[in-house]
């Protein structure tokens, strides 16, 4: 599982920008919004995309889920429970790298 999470993390780090917003609260919201929606898409669950904000997370999530499915064939062999566990682990890892263990000293600046 750890190795698979590392592969997904590497994809996000090299191809995505949504995880690097400027403040801690932004990153928490972004990671939850995009990875939460991507998890639902991968598990064939409905995703809210009615409001503009939800839709913005949704478009990043759709592209992320498609890239994961195209690049990592082992994902197709996983059942829903395994996928949820995988994505939960990925979310924890992205939160760790971009927020809790981040060395970026501007994350807690209260102004934009």
């Amino acid at each position, binding site marked *: 599982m750890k190795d698979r999470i590392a592969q997904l993390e590497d994809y996000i780090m090299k*191809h995505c920008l949504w995880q*690097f*917003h400027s403040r801690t609260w932004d990153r928490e919201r972004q990671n939850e919004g995009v990875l939460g929606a991507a998890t639902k898409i991968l598990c064939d669950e409905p995703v809210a995309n009615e409001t503009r904000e939800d*839709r913005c997370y949704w478009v990043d999530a759709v592209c992320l889920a498609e890239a994961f499915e195209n690049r990592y064939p082992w994902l197709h062999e996983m059942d829903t429970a395994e996928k949820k566990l995988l994505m939960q682990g990925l979310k924890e890892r992205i939160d760790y790298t971009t927020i809790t263990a981040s060395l970026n000293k501007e994350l807690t600046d209260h102004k934009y």
Partner: protein
Amino acid sequence: MPHHEFECSTTIPERKKHAVIKGAGEDLTSALPEGYLNTIPGSISERGCAYCGAKHVIGTPMKDVIHLSHGPVGCTYDTWQTKRYISDNENFQLKYTFATDMKEKNIVFGAEKMLKQNIIEAFKAFPQIKRMTLYQTCASALIGDDIGAVAQEVMEEMPEVDIFVCNSPGFKGPSQSGGHHTINIAWIKDKVGTVEPKITSDYVINYVGEYNIQGDEEIMHDYFKRMGIQVLSTFTGNGSYDDLRAMHGAHLNVLECARSAEYICNELRVRYGIPRLDIDGFGFEPLSDSLRKVGLFFGIEERAQKIIDEETARWKPELEWYKERLKGKKVCLWPGGSKLWHWAHVIHEEMGLDVVSVYTKFGHQQDMEKGIARCEEGTLAIDDPNELESVEAMLRLKPDVIFTGKRPGEVAKKIRVPYLNAHAYHNGPYKGYEGWVRFARDIYNAIYSPIHQLSLLDISKDEIPTDKGFATQMMFSDAALSEEAASASTQRQYTGKYDCVPDYMNKTYPDELKKKPVGAH
């Protein structure tokens, strides 16, 4: 932390925390340099000041505006014309620059009266222009001239004009990035919401952090318009002052350079509920992903896919020709801020280049996070390098080319390293599919230039070959290629025009794409 200490900077120990090497197994939790701090005394920084960041980077690309600096003439002269952000009104904002030309007597007696005279004179000299941005400088800020009050006075006397006051003197921040911040916040606070947007499509975006360097904005607008999307405003390349006052009318902010413009996107989200979508306009795959995302947002993803398919079919064979010849070449990716992460991964993936170093002059740790995340292992990442450090890095890493600004670029040439202008470009645009091929062509021409090959010879000690005559880039680039690779019929060199921008500017688009199909959400 895998810090790197430059030999030339051992007398400035604080500098050690500003460079790291991303080693095996390193990630952002262990390898990130310090960033966006005051320049260390003794280190000759290459950064611009906060006035430069506000005026030169963000303010001046606005096209229908008199850009007047209240200060010594040198401030405005040194921030004039070196970034080629063209516009479709005959480059008014590039042709002319305005300054009050403060002298010592103004420092002693004040310069508000002179400022008012200058504003009126400038409007009279260009009666077709009714908008002005007024920039504070260190000199006028230190004597306490109230430029806001003067602007207000003029607007009361001349109700047909509108003036934006940018209070970002050079000392207001560690680098030009401080000026980016100030002008972003001032614009949304003072100007956004003061003009009603003219909506012409069911799909409306602001294109933010895009400065139309050599036509980047024109090439990206083409894709948006082919999808039926109205670009309500561009912040700020080729942007119109009044369009930018109406930014609040968009459905989505599409953000390119987060370093210079994320502030206004964040505020537009908080104040007007307009979400922010970060995109990459550089590189085939990142651009395709970006267009797909914008299409998906509006439910018109099939239009995006059509553009992706057409453009990829047209330009991919040309990109592949250059990739074949650029594989394994070493690059120091040393731009100002955002291009270190826009380009770090995609020039490796799509052109085969190896990025051996990234640096940022004025970026924040956030930019380094993005850049280091996208680099391969072994990359040297430097924050705010001084000239000696840059030279030491080039001598150690031996890059085949560097992408940087014109000042460090000229230094590189002196030690026989070719450079490409990462800020103003050589033969842009570089965005879009065609632009990306033009970038590859410029890299190829820089690395394999016959003149550059000659410059590697030192006439004071090297033997000068007299049996070799005329040479071309291909004689150098194809020497090491297999016959099959050199003659691949599926690949070709760039076949676009010398100046590709007018064709994009003169295109027309069907109006029916601007309306949602019946039954669509």
